C-alpha cells in the first residue's frame, strides 16, 4: 500500500515536470511529436531506475561510512554521466536496434536534472531500496506522461493562430503552466 502511495505521488501529485519544475529543457526540446516523446520517456525511465540502483548503495555503503556526505552532488553527477556512457557503448555493440531508437536520447539525458533530482530525493526522503526504485519508476513515468501530453498539445498548437509575440517557446511555457494547474487537481488524491 505504501509502495502504491509512493508511486502515485511521484507519478501524478508531485509530477517532476509540472509540479517540481525539473527537467524543463528536455520537456520543451523533446515534446515535438508523440513518438519522439515516448522514446525519450522510455530512455529516461531506464536511466533513472539504473541510476537509482547504483547511487543508492553507493551513498549508504561508501559516502556515509567515510563521512563524505557533502560530496553527494559531485559523485552522483560523475557516476550517472559515466553510467549512461557505458550503457550507450553496451547497447551500440550488443543491441543495435535498441541503440538506433534510444541512442540519441541517451546522450541527451546524461545530465538531466530530473534524474539527479530523483537520486537526491531518494536520500532526503529516507526511502529504503525498494521504495527508492518504485519512486524512480513513478517519477520517470510521470515525466513521460507530461511529455506525451505536451506533444499532443503541441500538435494542436501547430495549426492554431498563435499571436506573433507568443510564437515558439513562449506559448509552450504558457500551455505548460495551464497543464500544471490541471495537475493541481490531483493534490488530494491520497490522504
Amino acid at each position: 500500500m505504501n509502495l502504491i502511495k509512493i508511486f502515485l505521488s511521484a507519478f501524478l501529485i508531485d509530477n517532476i515536470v509540472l509540479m517540481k519544475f525539473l527537467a524543463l529543457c528536455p520537456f520543451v526540446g523533446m515534446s515535438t511529436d508523440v513518438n519522439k516523446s515516448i522514446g525519450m520517456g522510455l530512455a529516461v525511465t531506464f536511466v533513472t531506475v539504473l541510476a537509482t540502483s547504483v547511487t543508492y548503495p553507493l551513498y549508504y555503503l561508501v559516502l556515509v561510512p567515510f563521512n563524505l556526505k557533502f560530496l553527494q552532488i559531485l559523485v552522483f553527477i560523475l557516476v550517472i554521466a559515466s553510467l549512461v556512457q557505458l550503457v550507450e557503448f553496451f547497447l551500440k555493440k550488443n543491441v543495435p536496434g535498441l541503440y538506433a531508437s534510444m541512442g540519441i536520447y541517451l546522450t541527451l539525458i546524461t545530465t538531466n536534472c530530473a534524474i539527479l533530482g530523483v537520486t537526491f530525493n531518494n536520500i532526503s526522503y529516507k526511502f529504503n531500496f525498494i521504495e527508492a526504485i518504485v519512486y524512480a519508476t513513478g517519477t520517470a513515468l510521470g515525466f513521460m506522461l507530461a511529455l506525451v501530453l505536451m506533444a499532443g498539445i503541441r500538435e494542436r498548437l501547430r495549426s492554431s493562430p498563435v499571436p506573433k509575440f507568443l510564437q515558439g517557446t513562449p506559448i509552450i511555457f504558457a500551455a505548460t503552466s495551464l497543464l500544471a494547474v490541471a495537475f493541481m487537481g490531483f493534490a488530494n488524491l491520497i490522504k
Partner: protein
Amino acid sequence: MLSIIITLIFSVILASVLGIALGYFKVKFNVEKDPRVAELEGILPGVNCGGCGYPGCSGYAEALAKGIAPVNLCSPGGKSVSDAIAATLGVNAVSTEPVVAMLLCQGTKDVAKDRGTYVGIKTCRGAKISAGGTKTCAYGCAGFGDCVAVCQFDALTMGSDGLPHVDYLKCTGCGMCVQECPQQLFVLVPKSRKGSLVLCSNRTTAKASVIKACKTGCIKCEACVRACPEHCISMVNGIPVTDYSKCTSCGICVEKCPTKCYQLIQKTIPQI
C-alpha cells in the same frame, strides 16, 4: 585538514576508476564502422533533402557503403558529387542529366477565380483536405507555399501574383516540391530538353467548367493536336502531351493555343 585529504583521495580514486572503466569498455564494445561512410558523408552536400529516397545524407552514405544504392541519386550534388562517390567506391559513374522543377499552373490571382474566402489552416495541404483547394479550378495552385517551405535551396519564392516562382539557376531538381504539392503541380524536366509543354494540370474533360474557372486553363479544344505539323501532340488524361522525340520546337502550338497554355521549355528555363 583531514577531511580535505580524504576528499582529495576519494575524488582521485573515483575519477580514475570511472575513467579507466569507461576507457576499457570503449575498447571492449568498439563497433567497427566502415571508414568509407564518413568519407562519403563528406562528399555529399549535407542538405538532407531526402531527394535520393534515403533519410538524409548519412542514410544515403550508409546505403552507398553497403553497395545497395546507385551512385547517381544525389540530384543537388549533380555530376561532380556522383563522380566523387564513384571514385571513392571504385565504380563507374553513370552520368545523370540535371533536372529542374516546373510548375504546371498559370492560375494567378487575376486569371483564376477563388471559390470563396478560405479561413482554415494556412497551408496548401490543409486547404486541400478541408475544402479541396481554394480556387474554382479543383486542380489549381492553392498558393500557401508548402513548396516554398519545403525547398532546401531557396529556389522557390511566393510571388505577389499568388503562384510560386522557380529560380531555375538555384533549383537542383531534388524533387521535394514534387512530393510536397498536394495538387501535384510540379514536374521534373531535364534542363536540356527542348520542345513545348502545356502549363496546366486541369484534367476535367468538361470544357465549360475550365472556361469558368480560369482564363489560362487548357479548354480541351485540341487545336494544338490538329495544328502540330509533326503530329507529336496527343491528349493523355485530358491534357495534351508532347512527344519530345518528334518535337521540333516550331512554336505553332504556342501560337494556336487560344488560352496561352503552351510554352517552349527552352524559353522558360535559362540554357547554360
